[in-house]
């Protein structure tokens, strides 16, 4: 069974907020939720990580409900340069390897 499920693609326009929801129904007690961003022909880049409630940094916010069976990455006021594939990963923070599933291709248009 896939550990995470996310939409295949999302379209947006510059200046809008983009919210990507990831389902992880079988998340374990020790699992953390991590999001990565990948531009074409570049290595993935860490965006944000959380365990529960809300986490915010200079790039994005991560909302995690109490049951932790899903999470939502929020990208405020996107620009054309935010066009990328976004991956939601769930795993033990000390698993020391990342298991990428199918990411979400976000396309931002002018």
């Amino acid at each position: 069974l896939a550990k995470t499920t996310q939409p295949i693609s999302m379209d947006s326009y510059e200046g809008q907020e983009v919210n990507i929801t990831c389902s992880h129904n079988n998340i374990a007690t020790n699992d953390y939720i991590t999001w990565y961003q990948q531009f074409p022909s570049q290595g993935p880049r860490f965006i944000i990580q959380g365990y529960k409630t809300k986490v915010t940094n200079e790039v994005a916010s991560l909302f995690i409900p109490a049951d932790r069976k899903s999470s939502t990455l929020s990208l405020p006021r996107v620009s054309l340069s935010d066009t990328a594939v976004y991956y939601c990963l769930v795993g033990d923070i000390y698993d020391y390897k990342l298991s990428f599933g199918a990411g979400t291709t976000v396309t931002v248009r002018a």
Partner: protein
Amino acid sequence: AAGVIQSPRHLIKEKRETATLKCYPIPRHDTVYWYQQGPGQDPQFLISFYEKMQSDKGSIPDRFSAQQFSDYHSELNMSSLELGDSALYFCASSSRFSGTGNYGYTFGSGTRLTVV
């Protein structure tokens, strides 16, 4: 700030040839990971090393081998290359000592291997 350095950036090989990819992790990072990303695919974990010892193994073919050296750089050796080995190969590093685990991953820009 120093990043993960991979070389070469591009490599073209013929079938049945061998290839060696190199990775130089961020200074003081103790763990190196290798990932393979085929065209239109998601990154797949191959192998990792912690303090020069293999720590985890993923879907790495037997034709591939890797090691981490005393200066912490790592090399991925690929033999009997097949057309299906054409992919982007990423190296990443992190520091377990700092307790960042998969939070502190930094990926390199990758090596694009084309097998013809």
